[in-house]
């Protein structure tokens, strides 16, 4: 019990962020028209590509003789980049088509 309390105290800032972000996330897309469900999903998909930052950190910290960390980290960087770049490009392609409508 003590440990849990200690952990919460130590990470209270993070826990606040989590709680607030849950509400922001729900609030922000609350009134999305169904037409935009797909692009929105795709955009959100690109945003969770932030994992790549974790991958970069893993990669950057790896000692040069730790081949497991190096190879897995390298793979993680590639996959993370795929998620970010691919995600944003696909979303942009979808939305490009919506733009024409305004003409």
């Amino acid at each position, binding site marked *: 019990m003590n440990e849990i309390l200690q*952990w919460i105290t130590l990470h209270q800032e993070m826990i606040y*962020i989590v709680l607030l*972000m849950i509400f922001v*996330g729900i609030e*922000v897309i609350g009134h999305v028209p169904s037409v935009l469900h797909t692009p929105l999903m795709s955009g959100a998909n690109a945003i969770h590509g*932030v994992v790549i930052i*974790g991958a970069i950190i893993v990669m950057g910290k*790896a000692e040069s003789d730790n081949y497991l960390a190096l190879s897995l980290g390298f793979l993680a960087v590639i996959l993370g980049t795929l998620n970010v770049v691919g995600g944003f490009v696909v979303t942009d392609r979808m939305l490009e088509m919506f733009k024409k409508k305004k003409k």
Partner: protein
Amino acid sequence: MEFSILTLCYLIASVTFIIGLKMLSNPATARKGNLIAAAGMTLAILGTIFLYEEEGKKLGNYGWIFGGILIGSIIGTLAAKKIKMTAMPEMVSMFNGMGGACAALISIVEFQHISSAFSLSNQIAGLSSTTTGHVLIIVLGLIIGSVSFAGSMIAWGKLNGTIKDFSFKGQHIFNITLLLIILALAVYLIGWMPANGMLFFSIILVLSLLYGVFFVMPIGGADMPVVISLLNSFTGVAAACGGFLYDNKVMLTGGILVGAAGTLLTILMCKAMNRSLMNVLLGSFGGNTVSSGGGAKQQGAYKEITLSDAAVVISYANKVLIVPGYGLAVAQAQHACHELEKLLESKGVEVKYAIHPVAGRMPGHMNVLLAEADVSYDKLLEMEQANEEFNTTDVVLVLGANDVVNPAAKTDPASPIYGMPILDVELAKHCIVNKRSMKPGYAGIENDLFFQPKTSMLFGDAKKVLQDLIGEIKNL
């Protein structure tokens, strides 16, 4: 944490994510929103590479990092640019899986760090609460990341048709048991940190991947968008685990933001189909329901219509409503469709499109396709508007849509799609259905509409049929 430029970068990036997501939910600002979020992401990535410090040490291995980013960017851009509009959903699923895999890999490396550091020091000394917290987050990231990865790959395979629906008796119980075993192992690993931790960790990894596979397997192909959206929010949570691990605020903000928004979006998608999330996840579209709708109604007779008859019927109508579906998308017939629309308008026929919210493989699929062909926005009717107009419509032209016009959704409580709102095409005076064959649609059920006296069938590839139809009308 002392103030640094990196903190500022992360702060700006977090704000762009929130603003970007907000703008993405409005058609007028959506594209800009996506670009803003992308800019924020670039800032965060560059900031991490050049400014990140841990215990006063900068990151190393630049060659590897840039190499990875370069390879990922090239493949990602090419894949995203080359993919056909019809295959967009698969692509999203694929990228989502990559994110999940990335999160899982991070966990593997970090766990290896911890467990090797741990075996160096003596194990009897017990764990400090920080280490326990760390292990908890690493394991959580591993489980969620690998479930998301395996699930996304299955969803991807299902959407492009390489993987068929598959379920067995008692699968839900099997799944729940599997999940419980994973959780039990995780609790043991986190709480007691056994000497052979890496072994337990590997077992958890394998079981999580398996769970991802079995979780998505029984869910029907038509429900894949919902599943992808759900897995999307999973990956968000996995990314947030990384945020906890590195005390990194952007990862946390971005991850939780997507986790929450993704969950809500999943529920909204279910609502658009008038089904509950539970209903989707338990896979009521699964194998056992196919037989119930199939056999009994197959004896009905349908009538075909020739191209020239169809041309006459359409061009002498006052009002035509076009109902596009997946068949249109597969045949890439949106341009031919727009051409037909213009031709008919020049003959004084009123033409509009009736768009079912889940027509195609994803919500909004049809809007995207028709917008690509320059179909004017105000010609697209949403389901409610369209349903008010069907009784004043002379001809409904159904192009490759099936389940969204199946009257069984209203009349047959035994039907797996019962309760889903549909387009009431049967209210129109005449209905012409273009399909490639009499094969049932994605939900795997027969459609009574095709056997009704008002309906006539026009078989063939949507694009070819439309082009021939245009030719016939011009010759009239």
